[in-house]
């Protein structure tokens, strides 16, 4: 953990660096580029931070951040919402991507272009009740019924494999899997959540920390977010160079995929927001309400405690 006072390291010039552990949500990908840039370009160092970026393994990042085994990490609005309802002290401190870029993908030949086309098809998911509810919501809007969809649990299996086997559509991030499809020359149709309802335009992914960190080391949080923002800004402006930095940090990744994905994602990090990372209370409230209505939560969320903009460089003063 990093919450101890003796977690200092020296850079040789006598300056003390605060050791920070950052845990990813999965393997490194273009969602994380800003952080690698911030580390590589020395933005973290400028803030006096020595950031260690770690992959979480199967467990996912949330519990690790909450328990303080990691100081910061990548999370999702959905996860944080569920976590807070279970009294897990997670707080979102910045939205990595302003709008939800996920959607339901299917090979073009299946002709699934809107939610009503889901009917009679097989969806491959990871077994969460959220999926059924999301599909339900979309289909209701499109005057169709979720009961006509066969939902299958495909575990960790990726989109390309799944659609070869029994499955017609799955839920993907276009920025990674969609781009891979382009690279492979496979035509896919996307049904974006945001095209059908605002309630499902939630923040995914976000940067998160725990309540203890905010209470006890607000300066470190501020410093971290500041450096991360600089990193993402760089990635927005120099996607190609940022991709190289990511590739250098994770050489096992496919170069073409990273480059292309970075290009696709660069304008979407900040998108229409005034500043990178900003989160709106309405988004948190909308989504929590939607979840509660769909019986995905045991009790309503106190949305204002689930996130904060106070550490963003341009909002800090407010």
């Amino acid at each position, binding site marked *: 953990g990093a919450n101890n006072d003796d977690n200092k390291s020296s850079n040789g010039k006598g300056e003390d660096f605060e050791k920070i552990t950052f845990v990813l949500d999965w393997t490194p990908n273009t969602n994380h580029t800003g952080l690698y840039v911030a580390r590589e370009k020395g933005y973290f160092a400028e803030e006096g931070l020595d950031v260690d970026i770690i992959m979480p393994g199967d*467990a*996912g990042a*949330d*519990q690790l951040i*909450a*328990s303080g085994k990691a100081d910061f990490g990548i999370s999702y609005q959905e*996860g944080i919402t*569920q*976590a807070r309802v*279970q*009294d*897990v002290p997670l707080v979102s401190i910045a939205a990595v991507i302003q709008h939800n870029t996920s959607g339901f993908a299917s090979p073009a030949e299946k002709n699934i272009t809107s939610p009503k086309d889901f009917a009679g098809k097989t969806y*491959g998911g*990871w*077994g*969460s*009740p959220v999926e059924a509810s999301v599909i339900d919501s979309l289909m209701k809007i499109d005057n169709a019924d979720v009961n006509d969809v066969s*939902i*299958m*649990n*495909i*575990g*960790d*299996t990726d989109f390309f*494999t799944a659609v*070869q*086997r*029994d*499955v017609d559509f799955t839920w993907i991030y276009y920025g990674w899997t969609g781009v891979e499809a382009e690279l492979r020359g496979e035509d896919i149709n996307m049904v974006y959540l945001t095209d059908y309802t605002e309630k499902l335009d939630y923040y995914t992914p976000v940067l998160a920390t725990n309540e203890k960190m905010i209470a006890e080391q607000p300066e470190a949080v501020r410093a971290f977010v500041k450096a991360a923002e600089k990193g993402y800004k760089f990635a927005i402006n120099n996607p190609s160079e940022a991709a190289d930095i990511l590739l250098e940090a994770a050489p096992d990744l496919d170069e073409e995929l990273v480059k292309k994905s970075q290009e696709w994602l660069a304008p979407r990090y900040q998108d229409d927001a005034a500043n990178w990372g900003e989160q709106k209370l309405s988004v948190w409230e909308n989504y929590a309400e939607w979840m509660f209505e769909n019986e995905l939560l045991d009790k309503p969320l106190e949305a204002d405690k689930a996130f904060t903009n106070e550490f963003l460089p341009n909002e800090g003063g407010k």
Partner: protein
Amino acid sequence: MKKQFLKGWSSLFVLLLLFIIWEVAVRLADTPSWLLPSPAAIFTEAITGWSNFSIHLLSTVQLALLGFILGSVFGLLTAMVLHLVPFLREAVYPLLILSQNIPIIVLAPLLVIWFGFGLLPKLIVITLVCFFPITIAALDGFRQTPQDLKTYMMMAGANRKQLFWKLELPFSLPSLFSGIKISATYSVMGAVISEWLGAKTGIGVYMTLASSSFRTDRVFVAIFAIMLISLLFFAIILIAERKLVRWRSIEGETK
């Protein structure tokens, strides 16, 4: 091993003690439930969530049983073929042992790629997990048949088939049962892993959902359920063994 299980009262006592220590420690340290739930909380969840959990439980038990039976049959047949065809045994036995170092958890996704999401890849996983201990145990049992019994049978004019069915197979039963016992307990874990390859119900599914919704208590319910089913399977095989190879256990006691 068998005896100890029966006179395991002292074990039960130690187990109880461990639970009490755990309960007290969690209460004293005031550990949040999502980090480490108390045994009482786990127990409560097991009872209140039973109606939901039992569906998953049943599905896993069915899957494990099916896979276990398949694996046992396959394992025994493999052992028989390898034993009766010495050339094959020499070539294949080392590969069998090697195959145990193939990390199943890694292989699992590939199985889905090749065989889809149906029952087949799941059964393959469980079979892979189950057949090996049985094959090895049976082969060892066949080979450990005492030379003097074999010499007698051959001197008395037994042919290869008689030698196998009247001597080697019955002689290998105790060894075979050790293998079956191991396989039976493995089959449960194998079923849970295979459920991660995509299933609608099952302890594996339940566990994934529990951990993604921060219900650590449910994760523990699942862990304990896996242990209990394994134990149950073990006990059933033990009883079957007692019925079938009574001569061995009595012999061991009088010796």
